[in-house]
């Protein structure tokens, strides 16, 4: 039954670890801006999706211009 000492010690230790990481991340300013990352995370996909065709287009235009010359 003495396993309970071990288990509780571990659980408190793990909880303490979480507390430590929480304080550490607060200190680093990670939670100062809670809004921008939520928007930023949505960008990446959109940019890639949108950039590729337009990049191709501009490249095409460039080659087109070169050909003309």
């Amino acid at each position: 039954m003495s396993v309970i000492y071990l288990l509780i010690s571990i659980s408190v230790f793990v909880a303490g670890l979480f507390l430590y990481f929480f304080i550490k991340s607060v200190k680093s300013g990670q939670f100062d801006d809670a809004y921008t990352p939520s928007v930023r995370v949505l960008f990446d996909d959109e940019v890639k999706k949108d950039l590729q065709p337009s990049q191709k287009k501009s490249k095409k235009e460039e080659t087109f211009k070169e050909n003309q010359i």
Partner: protein
Amino acid sequence: MEKKSCYHCGNAVTVFNRIDYDDKEFCCNGCKTVYEIFNENDLSCYYEMQTSPGATPEDAQGKYDFLDKPEIVDKLLEFNEGFTSIISLYIPHIHCSSCIWILENLQKLNEGVYRVLVNFPEKKATITFNSEKTNLKEIVLLLTKIGYEPYISLSNYEENKKPVDRSLIYKIGVAFFSFGNVMMLSFPEYFNIDDVWMEQYRGFFRWLILLLSLPVFFYSASPYHISAWKGLRSKNYTIDIPMSLGVIVMFVRSTVDIIFNLGPGFFDSMTMLVFFMLLGKLFQQRTYNFLSFERDYKSYFPIAVTKLSDENKEVSVQVYDVQKGDRLLIRNQELIPVDAILISDRAFIDYSFVTGEAVPVEKKSGDKLFAGGKQMGDVVEVETINTVSQSYLTQLWSNDVFQKKADFKYKTITDKISHYFTPALLAISLLAFTGWAFVDWNIAFNVVTAILIVACPCALALTAPFTLGNAIRILGRKKFYLKNVTVVEQMVKVDTIVFDKTGTITTSANSVIQYTGVDLSKQQQEDIRNIIRGSNHPLSRKLYDFLSSKITLKPDSFEEIPGKGLIGIINGKQYKIGSAELLEINKEKVLNETSVHICIDKEYKGKFVFNNHYREGLTELFFKLKKNKYKIAILSGDNNGELKKLEKILPKGTEFVFNQKPDKKLEYIKNLQANNRNVMMVGDGLNDAGALAQSNVGVSVSENVNVFTPASDAILDAGEFRFLDRFLNYSKLSIKVIKMSYMLALTYNVIGITLSILNKMSPLVAAILMPISTFSIISFVTVMTNYYAKKTLSIKAKKRGT
């Protein structure tokens, strides 16, 4: 005609400014240029996330020359080592997701930029760049060119980076950690009191609980102990005293219980209590990061000005380095930072910033110009007669009266209640102690501690933070931003409202101009602009700014008829520009409308209508306030030219005071307060700053809350000005919610204290009663504040109101 708007900035596109490009319509060349830049760099999906997200770029010619000076740049940079530099810039225009996107893709427009991180709530962009490939000036100019002009002022230059105080979050983290674990470890005790298994481990659980509670008592709860101690010493019986006392008694009794193996103690309740208290504290700390309530003249002043050296060369010089006798160049829209004498022929100085006078004043060569004026029009040359620190405006600001935020001994509603609550609580415990002392000493001690623990005014102390915290959130959503929660309570006490005139009850100078009538050709627009160029009348100036055509030639003849308008001949055509009288036409006079009629070669073309001068809903607002028994006054730095008009549209009994200098305004508020009046001052400019500081509640009205407002208790979006009465009503209702919630809290306390007096209070009962009271109070005030918000602030109420 269909209403069209600029593809880039969303401003109205009219026949006067329309530019077609790439199948899109733009309102000006600037917007078109930005579109071109984005298009060329594959950034056109800027326009796909949000329709017309941009801003018209301002002309920055020479404005940022001071960024060439390394000593200034050094002060602005956050980090600078090797070739890597980091700068944090405040960009007021940041307002949507497109803004974040375009700014964080800035490296596509400038190769020297490594990356940009936008902090949206603070409207800040942190830019990391390679100082070898680019420099700060280039970046600032690029931002300006794409419509994201950063705001750099003297306060940036001096600002010492304040470390952010995050200790409250740490305290909450620690309290939550302990609370969770203590709760978990307390559970066996709740249910298996006489179990054999429990017998074996009880000691272990209890000592672990004691250990986990130590940081809560000594660290998390420390602000309460400190403030209670301070309160005791200054004989100011705040709510912190019974709270700290409750926590201390809980801690001591529980420790004693555990050490002498008398019982499980109340650590579960204690940790939970501290956790919720701190949470309440966090909740009422609603900060609007993008607003600042404490600004002084430094946030308005430029960092550097353009000085003319002896060889007539333009050099940037830091404003504090400006010497007496220096010659400075002041550009259009630039602030004059020092008292000076005008050297150029003439200048138009807008003193609205200092005096509240709306119309720019014409100054001739040799006239004295005071610091704080803004030049409108061409570049002028001035010679300084003072240094910055000795100038009128700076002197005015350093004046003690302007500095001191009236030091009221303000008592919050919670403090008032606790003033009765604390002595009553102590009296009850003393009585209970003496009563039980005749029966059993041990029970007597138990009872007293139990009373102090349950009566620990958890519910009482949570009510105000959660109600007021929620109230300022709701008001913030309605664009009425309060500095802190005590402002809500102070608003309730207001019985006199003083309004500034210019910019507060009137709209700001650059109001929208509309044209009705026969379309004017490009040529005709140009001619009109050329004619009105010579006129100094405020309407001419506005119209001149509105028409964007080029200036080409001087009119052949030009005559200004005072009070009527202009007659000019250009290209052989006669233009009559002015009032209906001048044009000899019969037009119905529309009340409260200012218009300029156009007639070319005796043919009537149409009129330019200058939008309503007074704010929408002004009359209704004043009548409503009057009905609610507020005393209203209008305090203006202007002359009394509009007195008659104002008297006509505003209710009787409104007091009018004109020609008030900033210090006089402050004096006026002081006099009212001396007559036991609680004054709300509603103002807008720096000229009201003293009055705003002196008043009980200073509200600054702003057309654009991102732009700068003087120090005040609250910032009101100009569009919501007409709902001021509702905000006042809502603050009253919030206090009503607090009072109702106090009744509820008191009921819990009566039950708890009765149980304690009868010695029926066990840790288990306490562990049940405490969370019930906490949760019910928090949910009650949240539901009620939202309910009242719906009732008084919603759109339905708007319909009923108008």
